[in-house]
């Protein structure tokens, strides 16, 4: 085990996989950083420091610094993948998916099905998402709700450095397109990470981070820590929370969710994306359909309001779910009947 930052877990996994498999190729804007400048290549090493040193080690055919061209980046990843490579494309900020949406939505997500199952498209599209940095409406969004709604994409949202490691390795070795969402407010968090170079976490297996039995909290990413804080606080009052870290939203681990809800009968989904047509609504529908007879209270979702993300510190914190809002929701479902 090593103690490592979330961002270092991203970089070391990519590094190890590039060493292992010559078909792994990295591309994106500033993934080298400094190309064409007097300072020279690797002057930046990726804006999130998740590609530092790759260029020096693997050179320009495997580490491709691109112009600002999101469609071309995702499209090139598609072409690389169809040609036997395992591209890892970085989109900088998840908000930029809009600029490349056709390539994500109509191309990589569709090839395998549309071409009769004879084609695989092993592309990983990495991007930093999430609020918490006062980066406002165009640099803070959680896009998993849009991408999870697209058949053909696997969508991964690691919360801990260990999960980054295990899930990113699975993503790179997966034969299908994977959207890998890194929460930008988690990059500097640390945790214990297994050293095993084959350590992998399969998709579709949620992590039970707290076991309690009275109420089920479902989340991922930045807000998972808030759910854990609520669980720890309520434990002092003798209230037990199951806290489920989804890890992947597609595929979805229905079993872990339903098993928990069948015991607790009470659910709060905590999500960073807006409330309409999103993950919260989706999971509330899931438990209503499949665990109705176990429910003791209506399932609730805690999300930001249905607005763009505001800039000012006070506004952003009012916008985001908080420990208090989550705790209030838990008390509401507990108070039911």
């Amino acid at each position, binding site marked *: 085990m090593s103690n490592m930052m979330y961002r270092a877990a991203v970089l070391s996994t990519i590094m190890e996989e590039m060493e292992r498999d*010559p*078909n792994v*190729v990295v*591309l994106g804007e500033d993934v080298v950083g400094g190309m064409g400048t007097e300072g020279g290549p690797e002057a930046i090493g990726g804006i999130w420091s998740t590609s530092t040193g790759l260029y020096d080690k693997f050179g*320009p*055919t*495997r580490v*491709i610094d*691109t*112009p600002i*061209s999101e*469609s*071309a*980046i*995702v*499209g*090139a*990843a*598609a*072409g*690389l*993948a*169809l*040609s*036997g*490579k395992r*591209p890892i494309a970085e989109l900088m900020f998840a908000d930029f998916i809009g600029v490349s949406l*056709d*390539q994500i939505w*109509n*191309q990589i997500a*569709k*090839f*395998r*099905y*549309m*071409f*009769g*199952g*004879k*084609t695989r498209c092993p592309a990983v599209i990495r991007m930093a998402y999430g609020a918490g940095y006062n980066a406002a409406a165009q640099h803070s969004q959680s896009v998993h709700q849009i991408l999870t709604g697209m*058949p*053909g*994409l*696997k969508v991964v949202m690691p919360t801990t450095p260990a999960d980054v490691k295990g899930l990113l390795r699975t993503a790179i070795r997966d034969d*299908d397109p994977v959207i890998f969402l890194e929460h930008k407010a988690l990059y500097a968090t640390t945790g214990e990470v297994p050293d095993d170079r084959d350590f992998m976490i399969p998709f*579709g297996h949620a992590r039970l981070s707290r076991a309690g039995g009275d109420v089920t909290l479902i989340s991922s990413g930045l807000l998972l820590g808030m759910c854990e804080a609520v669980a720890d606080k309520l434990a002092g009052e003798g209230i037990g929370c199951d806290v489920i870290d989804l890890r992947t939203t*597609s*595929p*979805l681990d*229905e079993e872990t969710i339903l098993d928990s809800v069948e015991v607790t009968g009470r659910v709060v989904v905590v999500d960073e994306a807006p409330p309409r047509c999103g993950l919260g609504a989706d999971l509330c529908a899931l438990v209503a359909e499949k665990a109705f007879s176990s429910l003791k209270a209506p399932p609730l979702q805690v999300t930001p309001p249905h607005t763009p993300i505001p800039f000012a510190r006070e506004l952003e914190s009012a916008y985001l779910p908080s420990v208090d809002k989550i705790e209030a929701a838990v008390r509401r479902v507990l108070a039911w009947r």
Partner: protein
Amino acid sequence: MQLSREALLAAYRQMKIIREFEERLHVEIQTGEIAGFTHLYCGQEAVAVGVCEHLSPSDKIVSTHRGHGHCLAKGCDVNDMMKEIWGSREGLCKGKGGSMHIADVTKGMLGANGIVGAGAPIAVGAALASRVDGPGPDGLSVAIAFSGDGACNQGTTFEAMNLASVTKAPCIFVFENNHYSEHTGVSYAVGTNQDIASRAEAFGMKAWRADGTDFFAVHNTMREVLDYVRAGNGPAAVEFDTERFFGHFEGDPQRYRGPGELDRIRATRDCLTKFRASVTGAGLLADADLDAVDADVMGAIEGAVAAARAADRPTAEDVLADVYIAY
């Protein structure tokens, strides 16, 4: 470059296959048996064949919504193609793709595409993959992005040309200028001037221009372009001036065409007629040789249609085949 008798016959046969495949589709579509949108490539055969005959399976192509010609020229099986267009589960894509989304990656055919302009970045990716593999005995494998004059107005095409140029990817942008995007003329839709090749030149690429209705012009130009790109000089572009004999899609009444335009282009700009005239005129092949190819091709197409009609239909369970994410 002088082509052997065998090479001439093979090129003619391939063009004729595409022509008959499509002329036959044009007829069969009227029976109502074929579902969906079908865009015919007829008239542009010399481009697909003149480009693809130089390619090996390790070279990749990315096609368009008007993809039948490119698919056939890159080696997709005629019967499997016909079955796919018929929507059979025996089709090249098991009836999941249809006319607009045929692919056979084993042949280096990375897909027709329903989204205009989407192919060019994918071709750049395939070309970047070739750079990872490095050159073989004949130089680098290449990737060809086929695009229409309409597709060249998409941002993706510009992004792809710039990325290819920056990375020196062995990518060739083949622009088939048939003067129309759907029902809009190139003189209206392409700003500044109507020369698409010069756009590629603006991205630092070497660009060629040739008559796309003249098989030999396509063939010779592509030889030069490929020599240049395989040698590692980076991307290149070529614009072929060509003609579309049918409407944008099957069922298009073509009210935007000028009076007598279709008759005129069929009479003077038909790549097959031109090919026949030049090879027989030069004494390279006799009419009888070409007639024999024609008869053979007619038989092959007849067989493909019969096979498509007889092929298994998909069932409701097939909807879930090749789905790889539960929920």
